[in-house]
Structures are given as structure tokens and as C-alpha cells.
């Protein structure tokens, strides 16, 4: 039993199932991010937690009591919306106090709480303004203030940063993280931006097409994506997915991959699971993060499984701290992350180091990770 | 805002008061369309009379289209079960309503006051259908009049035309002198008013009765009827180009202002002359439509009494008696231009035209030459009236020739029956 339990929750619109038996447990104080492409059902799930959508089947529990039938306002949750949903006819102060007023909190107490939160968010000078007189970032703060002032059991965020420009988004992200550290309120946060997901969360739930794909800590999700979708969705640039074949190598079993030239090379598997040993000849997909295919200088010297590789560079992209290099491996174009000052140039051969200790394997048919 | 509150408070107080009072207040509600100065003033005489007897007059005027609007309102009121005490009504509308079983029975009053003896039979046909008095006739309008500008007649040395041919001669002369010969407004009922007179003048009283009252097919399709239409076409040549859609009183104004020679119109036109300070015999002439002397086409405004609760009966009867009182009939008709429905009242209070009208009415009544005007709802039910209007107006506006008009007329009347 967790603090917030989502148990076998399904959502149907008519005959269309948009959420399939979702099971998630959120511990008290956790920051859970629901991430996935648009239309994956993450907002629907959030709305069901809020009580804004009816749960077709399954259960949602907070502190081990079922809340399916509890009115949204009685669930002790607060929500920050993508459009902020500030009441246009009320001042900032009015917006923040409205929920308190609805819950029968006395005026003086309301004023005190609003003042406190406004100071926390540094929006005290804005309290008498109307939402239409605020900038996007200010509105965002007010929306958060409105949620904070309620001091709820659970915070819900529905893509709160997607309407901000890039710089502001990064600043607010940090702000939210600080707030969570300070207040420690259980939070469920919906976004389609995987960087937000990685930076903010204590745990991430990746969703697609109404199915929960994987749930775990950011590191787990990053290192050990449970299927091809998660591997491709999380991380920027995403994980390289390279068609390969299991062969007997000179040191245990290895993977046969084609190089740019069409030549085959073998990459030894690091500590392969016993099940793979007798699967020589099986087609698999090798997943490698860009930073695991890099130049010898950038390679992780502590890795027990660095393997060299010589391959033709197709194109290089300089990004300041990093240089991204495209090569052909296994018949697909892959991305390597190198140091910003690495001196490689297009149309020349370069030696690369593959860190096979970070490699993950997927089954091409089921698209699941082979453990 | 304060005023509004005060009004509401007053209204509330009034409600309390009226519901608290033990005696039912005597009151009548009268639906009518006499809203302009003269006629409304005339009606005021009636109101005053009733008030002196302790009866409150609740006025419910709805003007428009010679009572068309009022009749619509009446239908809504009766359907709602909220009929007024009395309703101004014309001719066949009365008969239509008498069939619906929603009217009062005035026989008791009528007997006491001996209405039978003083009201012409032709009017009784409407006021007392099937032996029951349901209405109190107020007045008798006569529609076969000619109104002429005396100055033009004097200038051209014309005398009052007595026959159709003389009329045409006079019209020709007026036209030749550069005046508009005939002032006319191209509205269906005005076309119909002229048509009525031409039918009477052309076919004589019996023909009029056959065609316009009995709706005899032979008469409607006869050659005489073709002559009537030919004459209508002839008259069409004497109106100005602007006649279409003109209100009747604007046409009258043309005669008053010496722009036009004559107008064929009911006796209400006299009011226009009088209000423009013109005197009968001095400034304008009134005479019967040529070839129709001795006969009178009439329409009669009557107050039809609707069945109301017992407690309202005394007030309703007082209203009926008041309407029929000689004093009111005199006072009202003096202003309205019509003559009295009672034939036994001294007519000397009326002007010259009025006095002649009263004499004509009595004579026509005696010689059975008093006929209901088709154009004013006393010749036939409104459906047929409208059908006749359709044909007359279409023909007058040149949509088809006389022969076709005769056929159309017979067919239209048949279809509307």
C-alpha cells in the first residue's frame, strides 16, 4: 500500500479503451512524472486522480481509502493546469483565495495563507492585479500559488511549463524542484517533455497508447528501458537501436554488427545472461546510448567492457559541450556523443569506443528488453 | 427605480384592496378599434354615461386593418377563456361568432327597450340572428356615396351627376380641366367599396342582392357582371398613377385640396372634410352614387356581447342599454359621420349630409333596398369577401380583362364558400 494507489484503472469512452489496467503506487513525498507522447492517456489518468474524469473500472486510493466516488473538491488535491486556468474576473489574490473560501476558511486566515504563499513565490506585488495584466511566467507562478495555498495531500501538474518560452521553462523547472524539496508534498506531474521528466522526478512512469510502459527511477528508465518505445522516447538524443545477431565470439558470445563499409564486426557481450548463451544465431536489437559510443578520449575509463571500433564518420554536429557524430552501424544511422573539442571530421574514418557494459538487448518481435 | 418601486407597491395595495372588497365592482371591458380623435371622443360619451351609472369602463383598443388586428386579439382572448365584455364587430364576423356559442343573450333588455321596433331588419339580421339579440348596433355607415369638390364643380359648371353616363361626362370634363378626376386609394377594400357601388348602379338593387348577398352563381357570371367590370376598367382611367396603396384619407385630402374632383367612399370620409374645416354644400358636395339613388349599402358597427359571469351581467346590460340610448346614438353619429342605427331618433342634430343619410336609410329600409355592403363584411362571410377582393383588385390593377374577371369571380366565390 502506497500513499496514492492506482489499481487496475481503466478508462473507456464508449467502446474505445483509452487506458488499460494502469497500476501505479506513489509513495508519500514522491515526485512522480507521467510522461509519454500526446494522446497516450497521461492527462486522462491525471484527471481521474483529480476526479475530473470518471474511472471506468479499477480503483484510486489515497491513504488507503477509495476515492473513486469522492468529489474532486473533497480529495484534498490541488492542480496546476497547462493554461493555468486563472479566473479572469478575479485578482491574483482572489484566485489564490477562492479555493480556501470554498472550503469555508475564514477571511483573515485566507489572507494570511495567501500572503505566505505569495512571499514564497515572490508574487506579493502582483496580488491586486488581474490575470490579463500578467506575463506568462507570472501567471505560471500564480497558478502554482493557487495550488500551494491549499496545502493539499497531492499536487497535480498538467504540463504546467509547456506554454512558457525555453529559458523560462528551465528556470521554472528548477523552481518547482526546489519547492518540492522544501515542501515534500506528494506530486504527480504530467509532461510530454522527457527532459522535464528526468530532471524533476523521483520516479517516472512512461506511457503509450493507454498502456503503462515502464515505471522506475530516472536512472532505471535511462539505463534499462524496458522496451524499444521507452528506449526511443527517453533521452536526447535517444538511444541508438542497432540490428545485430548473436554469434559465438572469441570470448564468450558476441554480437555481429555491420559497419559502414559493410564489413561485419563482433562486439562482445558483457556478462550476458545465462539464457542467451544457447541462443546463437538469434536476431536482436542492440540498444546503446550515444555516450556509450564515443571517441577514445571521452570513454569511461572505469568501464570493464570498452571495445574499439573503426568506422566512417558521415557528419558531425557541434553543440558546444558535446559533438554529435553520425555513423552507420548495423545498417542504421546512429549517433555518438563525443567531447566538444574532439577532432573528427566528416568522410573520414575514426576510431570509436563502445561501452558494452551499458548495452541493452531487445527482441525485435516483442520489442521487449531481453534481460 | 424609486418610481418603479412605488408603482409596484401601489399595484400590490390595489390587489389587496380589490380582493378585500365584498361587492363585485361593476365593470365592462370593451375591445374596439376606434382609436382616432373623433371616434374615440364619441366613444368617450358612452364611457361617461356608464361611469355615471357606476360602471367602470376598461378600455381595450386594438387598431389596425379595419378591425383585423382586433379580431385576431379577440380569438386569442376567447381561446384563453378571457373574453372581453363587449367587442366592436362588423357584419358576418358577428354571425361567425354567433355559431360558436360564446355570446350573451340580450333578449330581456331588448324586449324591455323594444329594440325590435326601431332597428331596421337588414341590421337585425346581424344583431339578432336566430331570434336572439346578441349585439347592440351603434351606427349605420352607408358606402354608396360620392364626395365632390364644390369649387371644381362650380368652376366647370358641373351639376351633381344622376346617372352613370352623366358621371362619365363629368369625370371627363374634370380630367380635361387638368384635375385628377377620381381620387382613389389602391387598397383591396377601397377597390371593393367602389365595386359595390358600381354593381348596385349597374345591375340595380335586385341584382346587387342576388350577386353580393345571395352569391347567386348566375348573377355572378352574368353579362351584367361583365358590364360592371368594364365600368371598373373605365373608372381605372380616371385615377392618377399614384393611386396604389394610398390610404383612403389621403385620397380624401386630394378632393379637399382641389387636386381631385370626386371620391367614391363611405360616409366616414365626411369627418376628413369637417376636420379640415370644410362645410357640406359650401366646400364639398355629398350625393349618392349615380344610378343608386334610393338604395343604401350599409355596414353597421355593433357591440357584440360575450358571455360573461353572472356578476358581470348587470354591467353588460347597462352597456347594451347605453349603446342603444338615443342620446348616445345622436352624440356618437354626429362625430362619426354615420347615421343612427335606430330609425326613431331625431336626426336634426346631424349635418346636411347626415340628415340625408338618415332619411335615405329609413326609405331604403321601407322599400327593402337596404343591403349589406360586400366590401365591408355585410354582404358575405369574410372568406368570400376576401376572395371577391382578390378578383376585383387583380382586375382593377390590370391582371386580367373583364371577361376573365367574371369567370374568376364566380370560381373564387365558389371556392371560398
Amino acid at each position, binding site marked *: 500500500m502506497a500513499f496514492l494507489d492506482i489499481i487496475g484503472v481503466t478508462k473507456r469512452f464508449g467502446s474505445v479503451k483509452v487506458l488499460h489496467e494502469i497500476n501505479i503506487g506513489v509513495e508519500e513525498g514522491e515526485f512522480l512524472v507521467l510522461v509519454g507522447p500526446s494522446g497516450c492517456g497521461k492527462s486522462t489518468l491525471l484527471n481521474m486522480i*483529480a*476526479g475530473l474524469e470518471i474511472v471506468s473500472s479499477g480503483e484510486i486510493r489515497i491513504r488507503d481509502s477509495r476515492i473513486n466516488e469522492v468529489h*474532486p*473538491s473533497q480529495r484534498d488535491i*490541488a*492542480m496546476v*493546469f*497547462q*493554461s493555468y*486556468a*486563472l*479566473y*479572469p*474576473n*478575479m485578482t491574483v489574490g482572489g484566485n489564490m483565495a*477562492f*479555493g480556501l473560501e*470554498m*472550503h469555508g476558511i475564514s477571511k483573515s486566515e485566507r489572507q494570511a495563507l495567501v500572503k505566505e504563499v505569495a512571499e514564497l513565490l515572490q508574487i506579493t506585488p502582483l496580488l491586486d492585479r488581474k490575470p490579463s495584466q500578467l506575463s506568462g511566467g507570472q501567471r505560471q507562478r500564480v497558478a502554482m500559488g*493557487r495550488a500551494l495555498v*491549499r496545502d493539499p495531500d497531492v499536487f497535480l501538474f498538467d504540463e504546467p511549463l509547456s506554454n512558457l518560452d525555453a529559458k523560462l521553462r528551465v528556470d521554472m523547472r528548477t523552481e518547482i524542484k526546489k519547492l518540492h524539496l522544501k515542501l515534500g508534498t506528494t506530486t504527480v506531474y504530467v509532461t510530454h517533455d522527457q527532459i522535464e521528466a528526468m530532471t524533476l522526478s523521483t520516479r517516472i512512469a512512461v506511457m503509450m497508447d493507454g498502456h503503462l510502459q515502464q515505471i522506475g527511477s530516472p536512472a532505471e528508465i535511462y539505463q534499462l528501458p524496458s522496451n524499444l518505445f521507452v528506449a526511443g522516447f527517453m533521452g536526447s538524443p535517444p538511444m541508438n537501436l542497432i540490428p545485430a545477431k548473436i554469434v559465438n565470439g572469441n570470448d564468450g558470445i558476441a554480437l555481429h554488427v555491420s559497419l559502414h563499409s559493410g564489413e561485419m564486426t563482433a562486439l562482445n557481450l558483457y556478462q550476458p545472461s545465462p539464457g542467451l548463451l544457447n541462443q546463437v544465431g538469434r536476431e536482436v536489437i542492440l540498444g546503446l546510448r550515444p555516450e556509450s559510443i564515443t571517441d577514445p578520449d571521452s570513454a569511461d575509463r572505469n568501464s570493464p567492457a570498452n571495445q574499439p571500433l573503426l568506422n566512417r564518420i558521415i557528419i558531425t554536429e557541434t553543440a558546444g559541450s558535446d559533438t554529435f557524430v553520425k555513423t552507420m552501424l548495423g545498417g542504421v544511422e546512429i549517433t555518438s556523443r563525443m567531447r566538444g573539442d574532439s577532432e573528427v571530421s566528416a568522410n573520414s574514418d575514426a576510431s570509436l569506443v563502445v561501452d558494452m557494459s551499458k548495452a541493452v538487448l531487445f527482441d525485435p518481435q516483442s520489442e521487449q528488453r531481453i534481460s | 427605480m424609486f418610481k*418603479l418601486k412605488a*408603482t409596484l407597491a401601489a399595484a400590490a395595495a390595489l390587489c389587496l384592496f380589490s380582493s378585500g372588497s365584498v361587492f363585485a365592482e361593476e365593470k365592462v*371591458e370593451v375591445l374596439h*378599434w376606434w*382609436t*382616432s*380623435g*373623433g*371616434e*374615440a*371622443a364619441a*366613444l*368617450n360619451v358612452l*364611457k361617461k354615461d356608464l361611469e355615471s351609472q357606476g360602471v367602470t369602463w*376598461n*378600455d*381595450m*383598443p*386594438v*387598431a*389596425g386593418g*379595419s*378591425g383585423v*388586428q382586433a379580431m*385576431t*386579439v379577440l*380569438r*386569442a*382572448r376567447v*381561446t*384563453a*377563456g*378571457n373574453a372581453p365584455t363587449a367587442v366592436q364587430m362588423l357584419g358576418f364576423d358577428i354571425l361567425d361568432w354567433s355559431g360558436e356559442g360564446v355570446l350573451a343573450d340580450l333578449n330581456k333588455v331588448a324586449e324591455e327597450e323594444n329594440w325590435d321596433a326601431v332597428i331596421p331588419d337588414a341590421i337585425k339580421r346581424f344583431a339578432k340572428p336566430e331570434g336572439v339579440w346578441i349585439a347592440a348596433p351603434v351606427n349605420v355607415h352607408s358606402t354608396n356615396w360620392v364626395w365632390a369638390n364644390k369649387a371644381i364643380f362650380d368652376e366647370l359648371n358641373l351639376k351633381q351627376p344622376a346617372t352613370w353616363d352623366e358621371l362619365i361626362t363629368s369625370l371627363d370634363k374634370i380630367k380635361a380641366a387638368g384635375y385628377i378626376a377620381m381620387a382613389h386609394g389602391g387598397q383591396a377594400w377601397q377597390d371593393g367599396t367602389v365595386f359595390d357601388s358600381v354593381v348596385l348602379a349597374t345591375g340595380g338593387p335586385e341584382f346587387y342582392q342576388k350577386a353580393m348577398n345571395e352569391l347567386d352563381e348566375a348573377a355572378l357570371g352574368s353579362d351584367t357582371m361583365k358590364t360592371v367590370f368594364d365600368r371598373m376598367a373605365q373608372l381605372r382611367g380616371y385615377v392618377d398613377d399614384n393611386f396604389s396603396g394610398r*390610404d383612403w*384619407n389621403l385620397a380624401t385630402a386630394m378632393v379637399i*385640396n382641389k387636386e381631385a374632383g370626386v371620391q367614391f367612399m363611405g360616409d366616414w370620409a365626411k*369627418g*376628413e372634410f369637417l376636420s379640415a374645416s370644410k362645410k357640406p354644400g359650401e366646400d364639398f358636395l355629398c350625393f349618392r352614387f349615380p344610378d343608386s339613388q334610393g338604395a343604401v349599402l350599409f355596414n353597421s358597427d355593433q357591440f357584440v356581447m360575450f358571455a360573461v359571469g353572472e356578476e358581470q351581467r348587470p354591467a353588460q346590460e347597462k352597456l347594451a342599454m347605453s349603446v342603444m340610448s338615443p342620446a348616445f346614438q345622436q352624440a356618437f353619429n354626429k362625430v*362619426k359621420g354615420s347615421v343612427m342605427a335606430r330609425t326613431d331618433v331625431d336626426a336634426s342634430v346631424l349635418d346636411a349630409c347626415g340628415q340625408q343619410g338618415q332619411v335615405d336609410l329609413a326609405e331604403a329600409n321601407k322599400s327593402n333596398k337596404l343591403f349589406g355592403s360586400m366590401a365591408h363584411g355585410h354582404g358575405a362571410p369574410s372568406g368570400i369577401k376576401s376572395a371577391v377582393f382578390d378578383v376585383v383588385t387583380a382586375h382593377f390593377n390590370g391582371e386580367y380583362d373583364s371577361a376573365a374577371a367574371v369567370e374568376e369571380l364566380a370560381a373564387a366565390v365558389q371556392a371560398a364558400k
Partner: protein
Amino acid sequence: MSQSRDNSLPTSHFTRALIYTALLIFAVYYLLPLFVMLTNSLKTLDEIRAGNMLALPRSITIEPWLKAWDSAQIGVDPSGLKPYFMNSVLMVIPAVLISTMLGAINGYILTKWNFRGAGVMFGLMLFSCFIPFQIVLIPMARVLGLIGLAGTTSGLVLVHVVYGIGFTTLFFRNYYNAFPDELVRAALLDGAGFFRIFWRILLPSSGPIIVVTIIWQFTNIWNDFLFGASFADFDSQPITVALNNLVSSSTGVKEYNVHFAGAILAALPTLIVYIVSGRYFVRGLMAGSVKG
């Protein structure tokens, strides 16, 4: 209008002159009937009879205005339009307020609380805007009689509310359609209920559409003749019926100057509403009601 936005085209002086000319010519077209009414209401009857209706009055008289207001013969009483004005006010204000209120709450329900069948309900309500009123006279009279409202101002208010709901609902539905659903959700989470959300969140933000609806309803109800004539008693007749009694008496002297003065008097409230709130009107239309 706001200065920041600008759809205007870059134009030469010549085209601008052309545009102004065209706009002025149209202004003349729109003003002509009012001009005719106004000038003739200031003439004596003799002057009107004598001549040119487009001419300015030779000598101005306000007599017709005074007469139309408080001494013209409306029925038996020379009461002028004055007493009927109050009848209209007593009818229009509740009718406009109730129908606007109902339209607002209906629009709110239809956009923010969509339930099964709401679409069909809305379709049926909308279609009701288009029935010709003549056909409802007789059955409506019967219903009013049955519920005891025949011949009362309350009855008239009921009639106007019923036949106004279609349009008011349409206006508010289109307006609230563009109103973000998230606001309603936020308010729900804040603990506001069905009515509270409406009162505290939607209604205070509905200024523009309320103006449009009130203008529309006020004009239609104030100018209504058919219902007023058919369902009112002697003591509740609205001003349009009185005006009609003034102008269309069938056999009597027609005092055109008084008629025109009366007509303008009767139209004053609607004219004022249009002129005062004209700018909000366009803004209100902008805010939703012209969006499909």
C-alpha cells in the same frame, strides 16, 4: 477599438477619399427614414398635407411630441403613450433578465456539463428560434388561460421568455464554447459546485455576451406587437400596441406628425440601448456569437 491591431490596407489618399465617400453615402441611406420621421414630426399637419416630406420644417413645433406623449387619443382616453410606456418597462425588464439568465445557464450546461442527449436538446432549442410566431397565438392563448396568466404582464413575460430562450441559449453556448474547460475544472478542484462555478467564474466573465443578448432580447421584446396585442389586457398593453392604436386607426384623421413623434418616442429606449452599447455589441459578437 484597440490601436495595436490593424487590418487596414495600405492605401492612397485617393482610395481613402473613395472609402469615406462610400461610407457617407451609406450613412445617408441609413439615416433617411429617421430623417423623414424626425422632420415630419416637427411640422404642423397643414405643412405636411401641403407638400414636400423631405423638406425641412418651415417652422418647428414640438406640439406633436407633447401630444403623442400625453394627450393623443389612444383609445377612449386621451392619455398619450405615457401610461403604456410603463407597461412595456414592467414587461421588458423581467422578460429580458429571465431569458438572459436562462440562456446563460443553459449555455453553461450545454458547453461545460455535456451529458448524453444535450446536443439533441440544443438542436431542438435552436430550431425553436425559427418558428413563425403567428402559429402559436391560439394554442398559447389557451395555455395562458389554463394557467391563469391570460391578460397579465406575467403572461407576456412568460411568452417572451419561452420564445427568447432559443436565441439566448445559442448566444451563450457559442460564447462559453470558447471559454476554457480548464477553468471549470480548476474551480471544481477548488471546491466550487455547479452553481458556484456559474455565478463566480463564468457569469462575471460574460460581460460582452450579456450585452449582446440583452440588446437582442430588449429590442425584440420591446418591439413586439403580436404577442402584446394578443395576450395583454386593457391594463397591460405594451407601448407598441398603443403606438399601433395611435397610427393605424382606420377611419379618422391621420395626424402624421403625431404618429412620427410617437414612433420615435416608442423607439427611444431601443435606440438609446443601441447607441450607448453599440461598441460593446461588436465586441460581444466578436467574443463568440459569430463563431460557428
